[in-house]
Every structure is written in C-alpha cells, then in structure tokens.
C-alpha cells in the first residue's frame, strides 16, 4: 500500500514541479510590476526577429518555431532537445535552469536582458507547448 502511494506521489511530483517553478516565477514577475502573462504575447515574442551585432536573431534561430522539434545551436550546430514540456517533460522543472537560460538567451537574441513581463509571456507560451 505504502509502495503504491509512493509511486503515485512519484508520478505526480514532476507534473507539480512544472506548475510549481513557472507559477513561482510568474508571481515574482508580477511582484516586480509585470502585467498578467499571456501565452499569445509570448508566441509573438518567440517568433520576433531582432538585429543584434548586425545579425538577424530570433528564439527560433536555435530552437524551432515548433517547440516540439529538436533545435540546433546557431554557432556550434549541436542539436538542442525540444523545449515543449509536452514532449520533453524535464523542461521548466528546474528553477535554476529556467532563470539561467532566460537571462543568457535574452542577451543573445534581443541584445539585452528581458523585462520581467517579457519573461512571463515567454514562460506562459512555452508551458502551453
């Protein structure tokens, strides 16, 4: 009985973890003055092109427009596992990973850090994929 219970808990934890990390961050962005996160605005941002260092850059340069697909690093060509939690459940489960990559990749793609609101939109979009 205990075993069965543990198994159920074990299966349920990853699902909660995704919700947990994203919800926790969304609350922090709201506290920092961000408007309510919108998956639609996240999608727009995801597909938007920016010019940085004379180069056209977008989230889709390395990830794909379809987040369920494997991407490829623009410079090194290394495959990047899908970002969509629906096909790659480890995504959005580790707070450190989420904040690290949002910080680094906004700098590369937009040429600056993303505002809390932009981060909220992006996370809201990614979690629905």
């Amino acid at each position, binding site marked *: 009985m205990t075993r069965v219970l543990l198994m159920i808990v074990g299966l349920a934890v990853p699902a909660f973890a995704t919700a947990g990390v994203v919800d926790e961050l969304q609350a922090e962005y709201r506290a920092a003055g961000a408007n309510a996160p919108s998956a639609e605005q996240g999608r727009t941002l995801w597909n938007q092109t920016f010019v940085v*260092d004379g180069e056209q850059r977008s989230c889709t340069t390395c990830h794909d427009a379809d987040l369920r697909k494997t991407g490829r690093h623009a*410079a*090194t*060509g*290394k495959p990047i596992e899908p970002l969509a939690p629906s096909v790659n459940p480890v995504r959005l489960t580790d707070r450190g990973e989420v904040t690290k990559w949002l910080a*680094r990749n906004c*700098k*590369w793609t937009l040429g600056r850090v993303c505002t809390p609101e932009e981060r909220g939109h992006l996370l809201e979009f990614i979690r629905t994929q």
Partner: protein
Amino acid sequence: MNRRTYWLLSVLVIVSVGSVFVSGAMGHGDEREDQARWKREWKDMPRAVAAVTNDHYANECGACHIAYPPGLLPSRSWNRVMAGLEDHFGDDASLPPETAEIIAAYLDDNASDRAGSRIGAKIGRSIGLSEAPLRISETAYFQRKHDEVPQRMVRDNPKVKSFANCAACHRQAESGVFDEHDVQVAGFEQARF
C-alpha cells in the same frame, strides 16, 4: 704520393668528417634527445583522450556544444576560456562562482599538459609555448588533420554547420575517441573516405 702525405691526408679527412659529426651532434643533441623522449612517452600514452567525468562540466559546458574532453587543450588555454565566460564566442556563458571554480579545477587537472593521451600530446606539440588557443580548431594539428574536409561537409552542411560540432562526424567524440576510421559525416553517411 708518398706514404707520409697519404697518412697526413687520411688524418685530415678523419678529423674533418669527425668534426662535422661532433658539431652536428652538439647542435642537434637537445632536439634529438627531445624527439627520442617524445617517442618513448608517446608510445605509452592511450590513443583516446580521457572521456569527461565531471557532471558540472558535462552539464554546464555540454549544453551548447559537446563537452570537449579537457585533454584536447593545454591548461593555459582552459584558464583563458574560464576567464572570459561572459563573452564566450559571442554567447554569455557566465556561471555562478562556485560552479566556475569546480569546472576550472577539473579542466586544469585534466588538460593535455597534465593528463597524457596521444591526441592531446600531438595537439599540445603543435601549439607554441606562448600561445593559448581558445579553440581546438585553431591548433595546427587540428587544421592539418582536417585540411582535406570540404566546406560542403561542414560549414554548408546543415547537419554539421561548424568544426565545433565534433560529434556530428566523430560519433564517439563524447567518449574521447577521434579515430579517423570511425568518422561518419552527418548527411554523408554513404560517402567513403
């Protein structure tokens, strides 16, 4: 020619030839000794470079490119890489100080000039002592080994894109094996080399 002249000439020949040998040996003695030592050491080294064993390094540095086996560059190169993570070939690859410290120590301990492998030793020998290249692909040994690879297989090949993408062709790169007999260029699987 009388006997005496013959004898004098012989001595002269022996002395001059001998001096050439002696001066040659004096001029190249260090180099020859170095060469001999290198051959002895090289024979005892494993062919493959040691595979990556540090989880921090594998996870943090293996996200955008393969976690290059540290034995492919000398420690002075790794120190330079770790000192410039904020602008790592145009990407921000900065790390929390405690993680950076662990990774820097791992790279230093396992660099080509600390842990021996045939391939690491050959790369190391192709780098000037005052040089600390940031890219393995900048080293003379790497370039010599890849000078026959056409651009259509690498830069213009969407499945490879860059020489940084070792594993696209060296399928066992992550285990430290870069033997040319194991090469299979992504997208050119049917090609024979």
